[in-house]
């Protein structure tokens, strides 16, 4: 095929093509980490979201920026689920797998469903690449694979070179656009509109006209290949989803955290101070905020995690909405300064985008294993409120509530996200800023010196009805006072090590945080109000667990779902809810951390479903466990 054929505006199909409708489809693009798989996945998501599908995504990439080419360790993938109805997860099984090399095929094939569509770039299946992937012979000749899947062998590298030839690009630069050839092919297969991606290419590479041309040709080349080749007989349409009316955009968890922080500071009439240190998977929060200087946001890239947290304590004392974001290893380092925040009772936010641990663990993979760290990872009785977002978009609204809580109760608040929420994306109903509820901040007024030259004594640890102390900020005359990590006397805030005072102050701090239960929403339950089984989940497992419970309910099972967003304190009706069901199941991406807390607090025999693979739950895994518990 010559390049003119590929570029022909109206190619002729080799055979008539069928168009079928599908309810929802799961696609996974996978290739070498330099193959641009995240880019094509993101483009497909954007195009599908703006078309009106509900979408949910799961990027999966190696910790190494460029692992050795062609190896299993270097495989990068992007999975997305797009649908004509509400979806909460990126999907259990893959309907269409695009594998750019043997290593990608080997690591991803187990997730492709029987009878699914498999598109491979045959040009990369040479001896060297097969060897790196550990294949003795080419899997493309393997009768087993051929019989299990609808396989499309596409000489993508060669076809793409044909499409982009004549632009004077080097072979290497020609091959750079190969991912867009693959994207174009899948666009044809799922009847997508290329225009948004073409516009994106034109904008992104506007300074390099030859790159624009190459990428456009690659995209159209792939699209037209699907249209004209005999290999593809059918293409599929996924109609628009019935989302609530309104204007939408796509948002990732990290973006929503950053925007939530920015919005919360504005709602509080304050500027935002962000002290952070780069760490996967939290760095995008720093990146996003550092672009928003015109919103009055100061970002401080500290020398380490400790300094980041310490600078946040300083900024909070100075009267800022102060925040840091990190992940497990960084949070460990912040522990001491978080304790200082607890002792000095200053408002601040600590975002933990959880990843697999312990130690460096799985930097790019998701886990929920820092719940107990958030509760207990500091010396002394050191209570902090903890909230956990349940989806990318939820990060925005929950963050505003977290900031409100921090300033209302004068306390550090831990905000839990995870790698899955942080990098995953979903359609987000764009709020009207004017509709968001303002955050009330009260600083005590200054007290000018009286005639004798002395002001009334200011009492920095005199509490209000919520147990919060006043937030007196430097620069206010007459309120000069000292705070610090040493135990403070009740009311006066002077240093005080006396026995009864310490007991009283520890309880003051504990009771203040416990009392937040009176101000947060009551726990809601999806499903029957009582019955055989209650499934309790928290954080990023919301989608999989909600979908599993809905499926079980449809099948007439007696099961209900309580998803927690407020972890400390728990909603005050949770204990009563838990006791209305015969059994309690707690699915978590850890070895049983919420289970320990629920069992300890409510004396129920909660059972765990624990997955420690750096991956989110599949819906089917949760359904199976629900069935098992209902049957036993």
């Amino acid at each position, binding site marked *: 095929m010559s390049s003119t054929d590929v570029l022909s505006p109206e190619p002729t199909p080799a055979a008539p093509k069928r168009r079928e409708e599908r309810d929802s489809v799961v696609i996974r693009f996978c290739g070498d980490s330099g193959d641009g798989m995240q880019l094509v996945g993101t483009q497909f998501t954007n195009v599908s979201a703006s078309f009106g599908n509900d979408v949910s995504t799961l990027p999966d990439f190696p910790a190494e920026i460029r692992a050795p080419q062609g190896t299993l360790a270097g495989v990068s993938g992007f999975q997305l689920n797009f649908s004509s109805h509400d979806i909460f997860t990126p999907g259990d099984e893959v309907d269409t797998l695009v594998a750019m090399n043997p290593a990608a095929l080997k690591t991803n094939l187990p997730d492709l469903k029987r009878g699914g569509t498999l598109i491979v770039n045959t040009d990369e299946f040479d001896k060297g690449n097969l060897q790196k992937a550990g294949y003795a012979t080419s899997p493309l000749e393997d009768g087993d694979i051929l019989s299990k899947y609808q396989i499309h062998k596409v000489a993508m590298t060669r076809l793409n070179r044909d499409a982009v030839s004549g632009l004077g690009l080097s072979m290497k630069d020609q091959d750079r656009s190969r991912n867009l050839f693959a994207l174009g092919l899948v666009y044809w297969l799922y009847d997508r509109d290329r225009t948004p991606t073409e516009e994106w290419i034109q904008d992104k590479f506007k300074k390099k006209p030859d790159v624009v041309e190459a990428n456009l040709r690659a995209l159209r080349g792939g699209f037209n290949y699907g249209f004209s080749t005999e290999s593809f007989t059918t293409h599929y349409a996924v109609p628009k989803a019935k989302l609530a009316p309104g204007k939408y*955009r796509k948002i990732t968890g990290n973006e929503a955290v950053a925007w939530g922080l920015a919005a919360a500071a504005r709602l509080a009439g304050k500027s935002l101070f962000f002290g952070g240190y780069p760490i996967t998977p939290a760095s995008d929060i720093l990146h996003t905020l550092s672009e928003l200087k015109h919103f009055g946001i100061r970002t401080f890239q500290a020398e380490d995690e400790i300094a980041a947290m310490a600078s946040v304590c300083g900024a909070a004392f100075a009267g800022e909405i102060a925040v840091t974001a990190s992940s497990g290893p960084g949070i460990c380092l912040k522990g001491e300064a978080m304790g200082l925040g607890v002792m000095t009772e200053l408002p601040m936010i600590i975002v933990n985008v959880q990843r697999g641990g312990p130690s460096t663990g799985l930097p790019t993979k998701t886990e929920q294993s820092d719940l107990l760290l958030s509760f207990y990872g500091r010396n002394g009785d050191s209570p902090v409120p903890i909230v956990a977002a349940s989806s990318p978009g939820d990060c925005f609204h929950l963050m505003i509530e977290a900031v409100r809580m921090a300033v209302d109760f004068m306390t550090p608040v831990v905000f839990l996200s995870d790698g899955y929420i942080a990098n995953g994306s979903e359609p987000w109903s764009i709020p009207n800023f004017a509709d968001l509820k303002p955050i009330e901040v009260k600083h005590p007024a200054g007290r000018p010196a009286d005639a004798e030259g002395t002001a009334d004594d200011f009492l920095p640890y005199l509490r209000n009805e919520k147990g919060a102390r006043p937030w007196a900020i430097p620069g206010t005359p007459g309120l000069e006072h000292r705070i610090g990590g040493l135990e403070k006397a009740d009311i006066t805030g002077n240093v005080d090590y006396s026995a009864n005072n310490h007991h009283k102050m520890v309880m003051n701090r504990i009771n203040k945080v416990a009392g937040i239960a009176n101000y947060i929403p009551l726990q809601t339950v999806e499903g029957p109000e009582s019955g055989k089984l209650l499934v309790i989940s928290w954080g990023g497992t919301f989608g999989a667990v909600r979908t599993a419970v809905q499926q079980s309910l449809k099948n007439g099972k007696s099961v209900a779902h309580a998803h927690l967003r407020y972890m400390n304190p728990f909603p005050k009706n949770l204990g009563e809810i838990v006791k209305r069901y015969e059994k309690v199941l707690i699915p978590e991406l850890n070895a049983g951390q919420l289970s320990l807390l629920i069992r300890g607090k409510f004396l129920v025999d909660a059972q765990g479903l624990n997955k420690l693979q750096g991956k989110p739950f599949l819906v089917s895994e949760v359904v199976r466990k629900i069935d098992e518990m209902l049957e036993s």
Partner: protein
Amino acid sequence: MTATLPVLTPKDFASDQEIRWCPRCGDYSILAQMKKVLPTLGIPKENFVFVSGIGCSSRFPYYVDTYGFHSIHGRAPAIATGIKTSRPDLQVWVITGDGDALSIGGNHLMHMLRRNVNLKVILFNNQIYGLTKGQYSPTSPVGVKTKSSPYGSVDNALSPLCYAIGSEATFVARSIDVDIKHLTMVLERAAQHQGTAFVEVYQDCNVFNHDAFLYATDKNVKGDHILYLEHGKPLTFGQTVKKGIRLNGATPEVVDLGKGMSEDDLLFHDEKSADPSLAFLLSRFKHPVFPEPLGIFRNVVAPVYDDQVNKQLEAEVAKKGTGDFDKLFHSGDTWVVE
């Protein structure tokens, strides 16, 4: 009409807290000189913040009636950076010690200095851990016998000023607790500097390390062991015989004045030199080979971190207008569901 500031006195800066340093600790003198200097700076009392880490010296904020933050070990520079960056209207002092600043907090100290955050830092150097009752510190000399080094410390000592100059500090000075006039002068000069002002104060821990600085405080000998730096003046010292420092090639040497050797032959101090080499050379002078300089080693003008941060904010607002959330939310790809 310009608002007039109330006239403040040292008494206005005395807090109501009982001072709990050991009797005759060098810290008392530093506190007293600080209380003298603060009212002279023309800054309202409520705009001072004192931040400290952990150690004897770090109790300092409790004894000054300003805003204060007695924080955690080694982290005062980071906490102060958070305060100063978000509130450039405040004058923020960091009070630290040799263990706090150079051992557990060494990293934060370096980064505060290289950023040139507009903070005033006083490092109380007593060459010992006092609060934990007498272990050797990063500035203790090799061989010193302490509770944790009964057979003598084998750790090489660090010079706080070498460290500061190596970290590109823009204001570097040294004084001593017993020289009240000199200490006052240095504190005033530090307060006036734009950027990080780093001051080492030789401070007597009379309980655990009283002998450490006798060479520099004993009236009978100190003239031969310390050298007062003055900008534009030759480096001279001497208890009875007037001596000076001369450069022999790139190597400094002590020479007696007279007998054909005049002040013009000596090294002249230039605190404003953009090149830190002279300041570094002076910071290497160690007793007993050289007299140890007191005064301002380095005082140069350089961009200030918190100014730069806030200027960037202002520039972005000037360019884009104050951030509009609705515009932000609707930027990029959006779609409408009917």
